């Protein structure tokens, strides 16, 4: 792939005559053809598949075609933008600043989403809440991925009784529904943001271990791994160049999709008071507080919920899109 990127020059597109052409030969052809042919004719360009697209480009082309995934990507950008630039969009002071004179103000120009029972600006809190949710989702998914990846790869690498032992243990953990497991751990450790991340990471770990193990196993039996071994490649090279890149796609998809589930679970746990604690502007916790006032002030429950939906939806859509774009069975 490196050689392909090496020759890429923006603006020149080279026809692909055969899929079988080896990378090195392609470079030679590149240099000959790049000056000789004119591809301003759109029909010509359509007839030839793009030459030096490389894996990433090909992946991006397929992802771009998927409308749902693009919508998801835009929504994800929006949420990430809110999280990154929260202090530019809104004033951090207002997150916890209480003002009795402006309690229960309905949405207006000054307070876009209204104010809550302490006179705090809901818009500011919702925007800053995106930081908490994104951080929880991403760190919890990484925790689950690290732990699951560790156990899964050990199981697939050593096989035999190690594999049996680890996987039976994971099966046992999976026999407890993830939400219940997370609740158990939070109940034991006490409700806080860090404990919530630990709980989510641990309760999603078994499914990660399972998928890492199965994708590593399916790849390590492949002919190209045998070929690399026969070729005399050292073990680390086989692991990093052959196994990991080829085993990665189901793991990436699972990680993205589970972020959505984790954000929803985190919000639910905070809602019942077992997660992020007040006065942190977590969406679930905000809704929990708004519950008491929803009779008189129903506007309080709208926006935190909408933001949870946008976040979870974006990760789900992007996850589905990644799955479709990375699936070799769906190529072309």
């Amino acid at each position: 792939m490196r050689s392909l990127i090496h020759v890429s020059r923006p603006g020149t597109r080279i026809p692909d005559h055969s899929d079988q052409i080896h990378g090195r030969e392609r470079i030679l052809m590149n240099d000959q053809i790049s000056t000789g042919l004119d591809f301003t004719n759109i029909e010509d360009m359509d007839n030839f598949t793009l030459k030096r697209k490389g894996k990433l480009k090909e992946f991006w082309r397929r992802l771009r075609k998927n409308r749902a995934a693009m919508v998801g990507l835009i929504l994800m950008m929006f949420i990430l933008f809110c999280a990154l630039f929260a202090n530019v969009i809104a004033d951090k002071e207002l997150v916890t600043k209480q003002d009795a004179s402006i309690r229960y103000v309905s949405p207006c120009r000054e307070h876009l989403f209204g104010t809550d029972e302490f006179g705090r600006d809901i818009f500011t809190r919702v925007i800053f809440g995106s930081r908490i949710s994104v951080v929880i989702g991403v760190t919890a998914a990484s925790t689950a991925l690290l732990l699951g990846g560790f156990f899964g790869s050990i199981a697939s690498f050593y096989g035999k009784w190690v594999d049996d032992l680890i996987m039976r243990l994971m099966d046992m953990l999976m026999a407890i529904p993830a939400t219940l497991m997370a609740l158990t751990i939070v109940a034991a450790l006490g409700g806080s943001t860090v404990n919530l991340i630990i709980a989510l990471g641990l309760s999603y770990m078994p499914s990660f271990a399972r998928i890492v193990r199965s994708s590593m196993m399916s790849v390590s039996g492949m002919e190209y791994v045998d070929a690399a071994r026969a070729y005399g490649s050292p073990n680390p090279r086989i692991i990093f160049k052959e196994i990991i890149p080829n085993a990665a796609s189901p793991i990436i998809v699972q990680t993205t999709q589970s972020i959505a589930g984790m954000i929803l679970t985190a919000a639910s746990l905070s809602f019942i008071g077992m997660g992020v604690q007040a006065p942190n502007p977590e969406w679930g916790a905000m809704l929990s507080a708004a519950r008491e006032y929803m009779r008189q002030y129903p506007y309080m429950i709208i926006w935190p919920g909408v933001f949870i939906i946008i976040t979870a939806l974006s990760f789900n859509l992007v996850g589905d899109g990644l799955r479709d774009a990375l699936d070799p069975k769906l190529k072309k």
Partner: protein
Amino acid sequence: MVKYTLKRILLIIPVCLGIAFIIFAIMNLTPGDPARIILGQSATAEAVEQLREELHLNDPFFKRFIDYLGDIITKGDFGNSYRTSKPVLNEILNRFPVSLKLAICGMITSCIFGIPLGILAAVKQYSKLDSIVSVLSMTIVAMPAFWVAMVLIVIFSLKLGILPASGAVGWKCYILPSITLMLANGCSVLRITRSTMLDTIRMDYVRTARAKGVPEPRIVFKHSLQNALLPIITTVGTIFGSLLGGAIVCETVFSMPGLGSLIVLSIKSKDTPMVTGSIIFLAMCYSIIMLVVDLLYAVFDPRIKARYKNS
């Protein structure tokens, strides 16, 4: 078939023991001294020590676990609640019917919602209806159940005033929670119905049936749906299992006196035996339901039946 059933039933025993151990171990990580929590901050050190002795808290961890397990197996005794000092099992069994009813309602509404829409979306693949259904299901999946519940309460209880917002007395109380659970879980039924129906609709035997001139409804329900049923059953079973314990949020929002709200209440009052007992109880129910699903699978799938018939 008998052998398969026996094998599955025997396999559940180590799983249940494992579950009990994991949950017991996690709950014993709880910081703080239970005896101190029961007696309060003003209690003397001697009183606390005495209670620790009474509750066997000074025993080594494994001995306590074996004793706990022994009591459950021999006497069905999950210990006594710290909060009410009554047996944990009584409280669990008192509250279980509400959770069970709720889970059944949720499962039925999810099927009513998911299966017909899934079939429709699959039969009319790539149509406008199909894309509307998929957009709708993606959005609904992203909605947190407690938020849906709150919106439903605002609309139907507070604005229109036609349905009760809380409690579990009478069938009316179950309507809004059922709708909440339907939206939260119906979409996964819908998705699995659609995708398995799409798989079976492309099968050769469906094409043969069509070529024979079998009427379309019969093709859809007899040839496709019947063969797509297995994954649907698994999904519905999983949903039912997780609803038993996973309706915690729903029970909290609608203030229903089920097991879920018992767990939340017990966690808040640091009632460790109650939390441990009810979570073990729920996790075991879940495993048993998964076992039943597996057995149903064998009943419906002639291939599994055949494999065990010969041996």
